[in-house]
């Protein structure tokens, strides 16, 4: 479980996050949603330590992260898997080397054990046999899936996913969403997905935290989101023609 309390973050005079709090449970898919510039990715980066919040705390199963020293943070980070918006695969390495990289760094397994783990992860994301391809040879969806395979290679307790569907067609987006949900339930990970994709929200949003202009406006589940009276949330959820047409059917 990850708990954030009263997170504040500014860049110069621009207050990006203003007192965000929330509790993200293990085994369910937690979504942080909001429009562009609402502070979603900044909040995610504060949670994983890539940004330092000016105020507030982030707790990983009761362990306060923001005040930890470098070595203590490294230990927590070994329990984190992350899928980046652009996948962030290492260009100079093959798919196999990308997934094996954290295993090489932090385990004492022999090559066969590591290879078995790589193949298992690739199988889990339906990319069997793609070991020797380089990132440049993969489609956007395949890169995302390799990113997920790398993120789960070390059996993470916490899984962070930044905009998993950006640049993907709707069908591939659903595949990625379902994969994230399956992995979360299968390994009981605390999964946090940052997205503005309404298919993801309605499809996998067990717990949703809605940000607007750096503030938490609403929290709840995908079953509740279509029935709120909050104007800002309704503007966001029903922005597309499709969602407007489907209003009332949820």
């Amino acid at each position, binding site marked *: 479980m990850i708990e954030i309390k009263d997170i504040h973050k500014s860049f110069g005079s621009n207050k990006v996050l203003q007192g965000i709090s929330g509790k993200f449970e293990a085994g369910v898919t937690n979504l942080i949603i909001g429009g562009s510039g609402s502070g979603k990715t900044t909040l995610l980066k504060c949670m994983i330590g890539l940004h330092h919040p000016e105020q507030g705390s982030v707790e990983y199963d009761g362990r306060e992260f923001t005040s930890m020293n470098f070595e203590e943070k490294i230990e927590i980070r070994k329990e*984190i898997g992350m899928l980046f918006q*652009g996948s*962030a695969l*290492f260009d100079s390495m093959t798919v196999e080397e990308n997934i094996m990289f954290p295993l090489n760094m932090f385990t004492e397994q022999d090559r066969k054990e590591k290879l078995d783990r790589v193949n298992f992860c690739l199988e889990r994301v339906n990319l069997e046999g793609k070991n020797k391809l380089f990132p440049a040879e993969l489609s956007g969806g395949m890169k995302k899936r390799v990113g997920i395979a790398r993120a789960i290679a070390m059996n993470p307790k916490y899984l962070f996913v930044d905009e998993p569907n950006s640049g993907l067609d709707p069908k591939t987006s659903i595949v990625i969403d379902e994969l994230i949900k399956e992995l979360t339930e299968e390994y009981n990970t605390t999964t946090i997905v940052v997205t503005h994709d309404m298919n993801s929200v309605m499809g996998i949003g067990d717990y949703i935290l809605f940000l607007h202009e750096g503030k938490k406006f609403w929290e709840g589940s995908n079953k509740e989101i279509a029935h709120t009276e909050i104007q800002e949330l309704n503007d966001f959820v029903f922005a597309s023609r499709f969602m407007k047409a489907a209003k009332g059917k949820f």
Partner: protein
Amino acid sequence: MNFTNFGRYLLLLKAVFRKPEKFKIYLKAIFKQMDFVGVGSLGLIAIISTFIGAVMTLQIAFQLVSDFIPKTIIGSVNRDSSILELSPTITAIVLAGKIGSAISSEIGTMRVSEQIDALEIMGINSPGYLILPKIIAGITMVPLLVIMSMFLSITGGYIGGTLSGAVTPAEYIQGITTDFNPYTIVVALVKAFVFGFIITSVPAYEGFYVKGGALEVAQASTRAVVVSCITILACDYIVTQLLL
């Protein structure tokens, strides 16, 4: 480099020299970088050094027109100039262009494509993993390249001088073997060590803190070469002043 940048550069170096997560992985990266910095630059440094030695001999011969000056001096001036200044400095400046821009672009691209963030999230000390192997490769391979450059520059002087008739083979060889002071080699190697550190660490710093996209990576790469060259020349003066 203003004071803020210099401070950030020192903090980055502090992170670079943290204990490696797994020495075996770092060792592999060090050998890869040594191949890139050293073996990959052999041809370029060989060509440049040979021609500079040849040109130096011709220019020294052109300037020493007096009958009172023995022609053996051409060899000894070329030897000392090559060892003390031309080989270390020209090699370093050429490598700052070739290696420095590559290091800055590589690390800068990794920064803007979130690959460095990915390393951090895995719990890896990204400055150490990305920069330490490059610095070790620089401080070991640049001195070796400079030694090769000295040898080829003096050889180039021999070839250029004798082919043009500016100096006879016997006079040139007598010149390069007379009054040789081995301490000049020590000075050159100290310079090469310092330059090797600059060539790798300054571009790595420029790349590591890139923000933006392709344009900013290119600007960082240009800045890396310019700052490296100026730093090399400043350090050249300081080391020469301290050691000679």
